[in-house]
Structures are given as C-alpha cells and as structure tokens.
C-alpha cells in the first residue's frame, strides 16, 4: 500500500523519515501498511485504504464525524495514531452493509430521515453501533448519551435518535 504525504516544506526535505510496518484488518480484510508514526488513523483509512466513508469534520476531537470502531469500540480516528492499530481490527461505515443488504442502522437512517447533508452520518452510525453492541435495548436517553460526542450541524438530532431506536428494534426483532 502506498501513502502519499502532503509536502510540509521544511520537514519533507529530511531524508530519515521514520517508517513503520503495521498489520491490521479493516472491515474483515487483512492489510499491511508502511507508514510514518505521525499518520493519523483517519488518514490511513481515507488515503491509505481509500475508504472515504469516514469523514474528517473538525480535526480537533470535537465533532465525531471520523468515528470508527477499533476492536469493536467507537473512537475518534482523527485522535488516534495509525501505528496504534497494529494487530487490531478496524471497522468503518463501509463495513456495516453486506453486499445485498443495508445494516439495520443504515436502514433506520433511511426510514426515519436521520440525515440531511449526511456529513455526520457515518460517525453517528458507528457510535450507534458501539451502543447497540453493548446495549441492544436502549432508551431514548441512552441513545442521546451515546451520541453526545457526535455533532450534527444540520441539527437533525431528533431524527437521528429515532433512526437508532428504529435500528435497535429491528435488530431485536431479527434476534
């Protein structure tokens, strides 16, 4: 895998760029990458693997648009170094659906109009995935609590919460 870095002027001229080789899995596919330790996980996912469903919103650990699961736990991928997923499993929004079917969370966002511009949606879904894996029968308050690290600038929270509750019900019905 090749990663192209931004030319940052002064630093790009240095010859001894430290590179580390890591192995990880993303949405079930095993990967090997040679990366600089300062590469952020979000950039590894977007530029390295080429999965652009993980969005970069604020880049300052505020908005949660870059939320992915690492070993099943939702985290902000702009605030984790890519080298830290060496030996770990990453799941992005692209890992939710199967080839033929949307994940109930995706279906829920469709049914309940849980998105407007859609920029925050992947992060919302991944944070919600973390919640539903831990608590299959959440209350509205549980959902709001779990999503409190994810910002929607369209302010569509009402329908986002409904979407997650819809998905929870669907998942429970499916057993």
């Amino acid at each position: 895998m090749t990663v192209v870095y931004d030319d940052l002027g002064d630093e790009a001229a240095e010859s001894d760029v430290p590179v580390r080789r890591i192995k990880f899995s993303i949405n079930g596919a095993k990967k090997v990458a040679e990366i600089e330790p300062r590469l952020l996980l979000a950039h590894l996912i977007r530029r390295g693997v080429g999965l652009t469903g993980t969005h970069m919103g604020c880049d300052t650990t505020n908005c949660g648009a870059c939320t992915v699961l690492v070993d099943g736990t939702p985290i902000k991928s702009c605030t984790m170094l890519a080298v830290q997923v060496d030996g770990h499993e990453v799941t992005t929004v692209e890992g939710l659906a199967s080839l033929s079917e949307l994940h109930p969370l995706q279906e829920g966002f469709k049914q309940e109009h849980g998105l407007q511009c859609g920029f925050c949606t992947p992060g919302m879904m991944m944070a919600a995935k973390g919640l539903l894996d831990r608590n299959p029968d959440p209350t509205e308050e549980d959902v709001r609590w779990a999503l409190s690290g994810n910002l929607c600038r369209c302010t569509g929270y009402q329908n986002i919460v409904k979407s997650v509750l819809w998905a929870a019900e669907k998942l429970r019905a499916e057993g």
Partner: protein
Amino acid sequence: MYPGRFRYEAPRSLDEAITLLRDGGDEAKVLAGGQSLVPMMKLRFASPELLVDINGLPGLDYHTTQADGSLHVGALCRHADLEWSALLKSSQPTMAAAAPVIADPLVRNRGTLVGSLCHADPQGDWAAVMLALGGYVVAQGPSGKRVIALTDFVTGPFTNTLARDEIVVEAVVPPARGIRSGGYLKLERRVGDFATCGVAVAIETDPASGAVTRAGIALCGVGGSTINAPGAAAALAGEPLSEESIAAAADLAASAAQPKTDHRGSAEYKRHMVATFVIRIAGGAAADPNTLAAGKAA
C-alpha cells in the same frame, strides 16, 4: 493537521518503557489514551521527539479495591471503564459522578484517568476529584516505585512532578474513614467542552455519630491550575453536616476559586456556581449519605 515528526516506540514491558524514557530525555512523552496529547501534537503545542506508547503493556487496565478498602486505578484504565463500573457506583460516589461527565463518550473510550492526572490540565476533572479524595499516584522509575500525593503531584498548569524517566503506574484513593458520600458537578456549555467550573466534594462520616471524619473539596476550571480547597473542606469536618457548615464551606470554596471572566462566564458567576455546587453536593449528602450526587448541572 499533522503532528510534527517523532520516533515511535511501543514497548512490551514497563522496564523497557522506563529505559526508553530515560534515554529519550526531556523530549520523550508517554502515550496512553492520547485524547489530550494527540490533539496538542496536531496543534504543535507539543512536539515530542520520542513517543513511548504504553498501550501494549500488560496488566495496567485494572481498577480494583484492595483488602484495606483502598481503590487502585491502573494506568490503562479508560474513563469508560470507570463510567460503567459497578464497583465505583457502590463505593466511590465522587468518582462515579465524575466518570460519566469526562469529555464525551468517544473520548472516554480511549482516555485514561492516570493520563488525565499527568496531563494536569487546569480544567481536568480527575485531578480535582483525586485531590478531594486525598488520592495519590504511584510512579515507577529505574530505581523503583515512589508514592506522590496529588497535592505534591499537580503543581501548576500542565505541570507535574514526575522525573523524566518515571511513569505513573496507578492512582490510588485511600480507604474511607466511615461512610463515603459526596459527588462531582460540572457546568459546561455542551458535552465535551472544557468545564466552566467543576466542583468535587468527598465526605466521610462516622456511621454511629454522623460526624464528618474527613472532607475534601477541589475545583477545576476556575484558576490557572487545579485548586485544592482544604479550608473549605475543614468547615465540614468534625460535626455532622449542617446547613451552617455547608454554607460556610460553600463560601470558603468560592473564595478559594480564582476564576477569570471569559466567554464561558464572568468571574462572579463562576464563583457563585462553585458555592452552589458545594451546597448541592454536600446538601445531598446531608439529606442521604447514600445518595450519589451525580452528573452535571443541566
């Protein structure tokens, strides 16, 4: 945004980590949860030459009570572990109230209590909580372990008293002298914002007489550093909690605060909120010592 260039090491043992820190000198930093350090590195407020990632060290993700009743929190215990902890809910009201209001749920999945103490942000919640509880940290260096009381550990904004080749392996809350009550209240504009003000109150009462055997009050967000308010806590000690003693403690805590007027509120407002929070937490404890004063001041 990218952090500056650095060398990255992920040691598999504590000894290896300490050796790396010793050899790395002043430009080495420990990476635990990274929820403060990585943002600071991206903003280039921090540019360590060496990052020692301790996430691969075994056996540091615990939080447990020992036989003497002391609570031990390992260096890799995440905020979320504490938020969902039945142990904290049943035995540590001040900590149980603070854990769910640290940053936001995603940050809580990565960030650690010990890392927060070491980072020593003046607005950090855990330093105030551990000060109120009379806690200490255990630091390990090349020549062994030493105990550092929180009062001697956080000495200023982003300043702790660790030697450069020392790692905090755990934070400890000493056993209670009686029934524990208290809580943590934080005023924030939105989830994940820095605290406008945060107040931690820890109270221990004699089960027979109801007299307060030990009290601690500490503040965050209202000064250039975490503020310990032993004078305010002393107003609660010795007698059973009363409206008078709580009011006196609230006034003293407000005086101990050194808030500045900023976009989060005026200095006067923040002082007022400190007093209000002391009254709410201690008042709740007086009404029912087993009630946890939980959450934020919504």
